[in-house]
Structure formats: structure tokens, C-alpha cells
């Protein structure tokens, strides 16, 4: 209980640091939203006027405190670009990115776990080597390149999906999910390869241990040994790895969203940075950090449950 409380405090601290860093980042980046908003109408005077109107001429800590105060009440301010409340702006996007991440994770788990385990059932040297080679190859391909190739092959040649016809989940959930399978796959592919490799290494490592030999001597077949003993142990580092993967899946989606024109948080983040739309960027950074922190925290807890050795006093 004490541990959980301490963990929560740590997570909160991390979030505060992240939000501070993001605020700081915008303080030092050249260019502020006023110039972009005014565009080619910008002159020195109009810029100054707009800055005052948006409250950008207040000192740094005053602005940060004001933002923090609003954020704690759920008010993230108004977007400079879209002139609408940030929470309203993000509401739809979160759903899209969440769906994309969920589908990616689902794909990773449903493909890598069975594949990894099945490849360990029998020792087949040539298959193992081939699997290793394929693994290496897949990990070497940049995800956005995969995305481009997929759009070409699955989108144009096979017509399994129509590029650019994204429908948002609130309109048609299943069609949205169906479209997202392809970007999700592009994100998932290298991570599937990594998880499979991890799992196989882990399983193979366990198989050399004494207790497995004991199991064999008691008459268990390899398959039985696997199911009853090895997997339980091999799964622990894999779960840790999967958790780490889940945490950085959202980061992976940023580039892929560009390739497949999926209007999620990643794309919004990039354009908002380019437009110096601070309130939106702050909010998205906080959300992304929250996701990473939560997933890592959950992974730690899960790890503890699975592996009593890791329990700390």
C-alpha cells in the first residue's frame, strides 16, 4: 500500500516535470503564435497588440501558474489556431489515437505470442534460422517505409482499403477500426518481430534450466514442459517488454498518422508545434506523458505480481 502511494506520488512528480519542460520549451523556441496567426499581415505593431491580447506578454511563471491552475480544473485553455476550447478539440482526436494504439497492441499480442511460442515447440534449426533472418529483416525496415509500401500494395493494388477514406470512430466504429488495421500493422510489425525474438530467447533460456530437465526426466514432453512450467517464467520479461512497447506505441503513431492521413493526436501535435499553438501542445504532451507514466506504472505492478522476486519491502 505504501509502495503504491509512493509510486503515485512519483508519477505525479514526473507529470509536473514534463509539463514544466514543455512550457519551458516554448519559452525558448523562436517564433510565437501571433506571427503565424497574422501571417503576411504581421507588422511589429500588430504582433505586439495580439501578444497582449493573448496574454503572452506576461512573465513565464505567471503564465505557467495560470495554466497549471486551469489544467487542474480540466480547463486547458483555448487553441490559438482553431479558436475553440482545447478539451473540445482533443476529445475526438484522443479516441482516434486510442483506437489506433489499441489495435496495434492487439495485433502485437495476438501475432507475436502464438508465433513466438509455436516457433519454440520443436527445435528445427533451419526454421529457426529462417525465422531469425526474417525477424532481423523486419526490424530493419523503418515503420513509415512499411506504411508507404502497405498503402501501395494493400491500398492501390489489392484494394483492401481505400487510402484517404478514414472515417472517425464516432461515426462508424467498425469501419474506422477496419481502416486502422493497416496503419496499426505498420506500427506493430517491427515490434512484433522484437517481441517474438524476446520471447523465443526467453523461452530458449528457460529450456536450458535444471527444472526443465527435471520435468523431462519425469516424463513430460517438450510441449507439456512448455505449457506447465517454462511459459510462466518466460512470460515475465516479455510482459515487461510488452509494457515498454505499449508505452512507446503512441510515439510510433505520430509518423504513421502522417503516412495514412489519420487525424489523430500525433498529427495534431506536429501541426500545433509548427503553428506554435501552445495550449494544444501542452495538453497533448501532458496526455502522452500520462499514458507513458500510467503504462509503466501498471507494468511495474504487473511485474511484481508475476515475479515475487521483484517485490520490494
Amino acid at each position: 500500500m505504501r509502495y503504491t502511494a509512493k509510486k503515485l506520488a512519483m508519477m505525479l512528480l514526473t507529470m509536473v516535470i514534463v509539463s514544466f519542460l514543455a512550457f519551458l520549451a516554448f519559452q525558448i523556441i523562436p517564433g510565437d503564435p501571433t506571427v503565424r496567426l497574422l501571417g503576411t499581415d504581421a507588422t511589429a505593431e500588430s504582433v505586439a497588440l495580439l501578444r497582449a491580447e493573448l496574454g503572452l506578454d506576461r512573465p513565464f511563471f505567471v503564465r505557467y501558474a495560470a495554466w497549471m491552475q486551469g489544467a487542474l480544473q480540466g480547463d486547458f485553455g483555448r487553441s490559438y489556431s482553431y479558436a475553440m476550447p482545447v478539451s473540445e478539440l482533443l476529445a475526438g482526436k484522443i479516441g482516434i489515437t486510442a483506437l489506433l494504439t489499441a489495435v496495434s497492441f492487439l495485433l502485437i499480442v495476438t501475432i507475436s505470442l502464438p508465433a513466438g511460442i509455436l516457433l519454440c515447440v520443436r527445435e528445427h534449426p533451419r526454421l529457426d534460422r529462417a525465422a531469425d533472418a526474417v525477424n532481423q529483416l523486419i526490424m530493419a525496415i523503418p515503420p513509415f517505409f512499411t506504411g508507404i509500401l502497405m498503402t501501395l500494395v494493400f491500398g492501390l493494388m489489392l484494394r483492401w482499403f481505400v487510402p484517404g477514406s478514414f472515417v472517425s470512430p464516432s461515426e462508424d466504429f467498425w469501419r474506422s477500426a477496419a481502416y486502422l488495421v493497416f496503419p496499426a500493422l505498420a506500427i506493430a510489425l517491427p515490434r512484433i518481430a522484437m517481441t517474438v525474438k524476446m520471447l523465443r530467447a526467453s523461452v530458449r533460456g528457460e529450456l536450458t534450466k535444471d527444472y526443465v530437465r527435471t520435468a523431462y526426466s519425469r516424463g513430460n514432453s517438450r510441449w507439456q514442459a512448455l505449457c506447465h512450467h517454462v511459459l510462466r517464467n518466460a512470460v515475465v520479461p516479455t510482459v515487461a517488454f510488452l509494457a515498454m512497447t505499449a508505452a512507446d506505441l503512441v510515439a510510433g503513431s505520430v509518423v504513421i498518422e502522417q503516412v495514412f492521413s489519420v487525424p489523430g493526436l500525433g498529427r495534431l501535435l506536429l501541426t500545433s508545434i509548427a503553428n506554435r499553438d501552445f495550449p494544444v501542445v501542452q495538453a497533448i504532451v501532458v496526455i502522452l506523458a500520462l499514458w507513458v507514466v500510467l503504462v509503466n506504472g501498471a507494468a511495474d505492478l504487473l511485474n511484481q505480481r508475476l515475479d515475487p522476486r521483484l517485490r520490494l519491502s
Partner: protein
Amino acid sequence: MKRKFALFLALCLVCAVLGGCGGGSKRGGAEGSNGLDDERKANNEIVVAIPQDLADSLDPHGSMSAGTREILFNIYEGLVKTGPDGELIPAVAESYRISEDGLTYTFKLRENVKFHNGAKVSAEDVIYSLQRCINNAGNMGDSALVSALSAIRYDELVAGEDNTVSFRIDKPNPELIYFLTVAVVPADYDSLDTAPCGTGPFRFVSRSPQESIVLERFDDYWGERAALDRVTLRVYTDPTALVLALKAGSVDLCPHLTAAQTAQLGTAYTILEDTMNLVQAVYLNHNMAPLDNETVRQAMCYAINRQEIMDMVADGHGVAVGSSIYPKLTRFFLPELVDRYPYNVEKAKELLAQAGYPDGFDLAIAVVSSYQPHMDTAEVVVEQLRAIGINASVQPMDSATWLNDVYVGRSFQATITGVDAKNVTARAMLERFVSDNGKNFINYSNPEYDALYAQAMAAVNEAEQTELYQKMETILCDTAANLYIQDLADLVAIRGDLTGLRFYPVYVLDLQTVHYE
């Protein structure tokens, strides 16, 4: 045995996941024989691809990017509006009269013009709109609009009987009428920045940031109703994704394509060509030596091979220009200026040596990295300048930095960009080169030019004013104010069975007359 079966199961699982989902998406959306969606045709609606999101407040009196402005053209109208040939046509006002001495303007409003929320347009709305506009314009630094509209004596702005609005001005201004294209908005309406409400042929339905904007036909439009029921403007920021969407038939109309993109499209689309109505040039900072030397600038003009640029960057599409007026401003454009400095490497080197730089000099050309046509042009220009000994290099930067450092901060040597105008006046293009103008980012200073401008502002009739503007245009060319290149080609892909798109001399996308055949 068991292993083979298990592997087989795994394979089936994978196929099921992919295939099932794939099949599902195939079922949705009827596809015509050429891949384009027949469902949309049956519903009389189209999907338009736009390359940039409308990341602006939708307030028509506010500052906004050209992309937002071109869409809002369908939603808002002023007392008058610009027609396809550059002439003004009456919009909210059914007719107007300017007195003999040019000091009194009277507008008779139409009886049947309504706002999208159903309210009838009254003289109060017009007065409110003009005042609101000038207030906003002042904050925005749009000096042209401010000085034009502030000539109106607002305390004498009256709503007359039988639905007229009239006002007086102090000095005659033949250009004032062109500035009265500013939007007329309802006086009692609050949410202009997120929910537009105007008098145009289309009304605003919804906006989903980064995804789309939806417009629908306004059935109570005073004029000829729009042909289409519904228009969805979908945002495609990635050029490749855009081409893929076009090839897959998800998009019916797509303006502002590059030659490389249109080359990849099949026969399902007709490609229409027009110009972007801007002046692309290498803009030179006159406060930086040696660019303050006219001979140096002229030498550089001779080194630029415009045809090669257009060939390399856009397959030959584009229209060369010689000064800061683009060709479709027909009232002012002087074709003889275009070839004032024909491509001549020898002459360029000669002039450069004459000016005292036989070994050339270093030149950094700032370019917004996200706009590919300018980046590509920059690469070609760099090679052309190197050929005469100038050590040119491209300095890519993002748009916010460019606006901040180059446009407002004016700390640059040279930059490649396109300058356009908000309305069909020469003033919009030329006034920025007056020495003390707030937007004179090239720091151009020429007393003769300033004097001519002052005269143009005081001009009483249009002919006189036009002549003065043309003289100013000539000076810009003669003094090689910038290295003028072209008005970029605007390639529009439109599906074969869609027609009716009209081109304008300003940056607008008029959807009113677009219809299925």
C-alpha cells in the same frame, strides 16, 4: 503433426484478422467503374481535397491564411464581390451609385438577401460589419484596408429608407469600391470564429480540425443557387497520401496540385490549369550589401533562367513575370516587362565584375521548407547563381521561423516566396514597396516610387491611377528590386463527370457553379 497444425492455425488467425477487416471495408462505398464513388454522385455531393487545414479562426474580419480565405469565399459576401473576370459584381447590394464628385456612395440592398441563420439582411448589419471590419483590421495591421475604409465618415454612415446604406468620404478614391468586398455579418451574432454565418451560396455545417469542413447549399440564396447539395473539404497535408487518395477515387476535386502529382493520375480526372495569382521571386533584402547595389541585382536577374526553373520544377507549367504584378491583374499587367532581363550568363558575369564583385559573393536564400515548389525552385536558382560565381545556398526553415525572422524581423539576405493579394487592386501588390510601409520586408527605398504612390493615392479617376501604378511597376522592374520568376501554375484535378469550375484572378475556390454532368 501437432506443430504443423498449430502453425496452420496461427496462419489462419493472421489471415482472418487481415482478410476479415479488409473485406469489411470493401463492402462500404460503392465503387464505379473508374474507381470513383458513384454514391456521391447519386447524392449530388463532392469531396474536395485541401492541402492545409483551416487552422484559423473562421472570423471573416480576422486574419487568416490564404487557404482559409479561399474557402470562406463560398460562405461570405460583401456589398459587392469579385467576379471571375476581375470585375466587381453586386452581391448584398443590388446596385450602387457613386456621386459625380466621387464623394458619396449609396448602396441599395437586395430585398431577398438572407443570412444563413434565416434572418434578413438589414442596413444595420451592413453598418455593423463595416465598423467591425475596420476595428479588426486596425489590430491586424492590414494598413491598406484600414486606410481605405477609414476614409468613410462613420458618423455619417446612415441607413436610408427603402433599404439603402450611404456614406461620404473626404477625398475621391477610385479603389475604395474594391475594398467593399469585406464580409457582411449579422449584427447580433457571437460565434463568428467557430460557426460562420454569412450570405453566400453555401452555408457552414461543421468543422473537424485536421479532418474536414462540411458545407451545404444555402437554399435561400438570393442568386442562382449552388448546384451541389453538399461539399466535404477534406484535409490532406501529406502530398503522397493525396495522390493515393486521388488514385483510389476518394476525392472528386483537388486544386493546387504540382505537376509531379498530376503526372501520376490516370484518365479518370481532367486536369485544368490556371495560375496561383501570386508573384514568386527571389526577394532581396536591400539593406544587405551587396544587394543594395542595383548593378549587382541586375546581374543576378540576367543569371536567372526562368524557363529552366519552370521546366525543372513544374514540367514547364507556370507563367513568367517581370515585376510585382501577376498576369491576371489584366488592368495593370505590363507584358513588356517580362523579358527585360533575358537569360544571359556572360552579361551577368560582366555586370557583376563591373559592380566590383568579379569573384562573386556568398548568398543565403531562406525558404520555407514545407512548401515544395519554393524549395525546388531554390535548388535550381542556387545552381544558376553558382554559374556566375555567386556562392548561393539554401537556408530551409519552418514557416513560423520564416515569418518571425524573415518577414517581420527582416534579418535575411534573400528569400524565395510567393506574394499574393487579397483583392483585385494593384495597391494590394504594390504598396508594400513604399519605403515606410510596415510590410516592406525587403527594405526597398526609392523616392521616385514613393512619390508616384502618393500621387496614386490622391488620384481622382481610375485611368489616372492605373497609369501611375504601371509606372511604379516599371520602376520595380528597372531597378531590379527582386529577381522575378513566375506566377506558379495552379493545377486542378477534377473528376471527369464534374464540371463548372471557374477561375478567378484572386486566390479563391468558387464552388457555386460546380456540378455533375
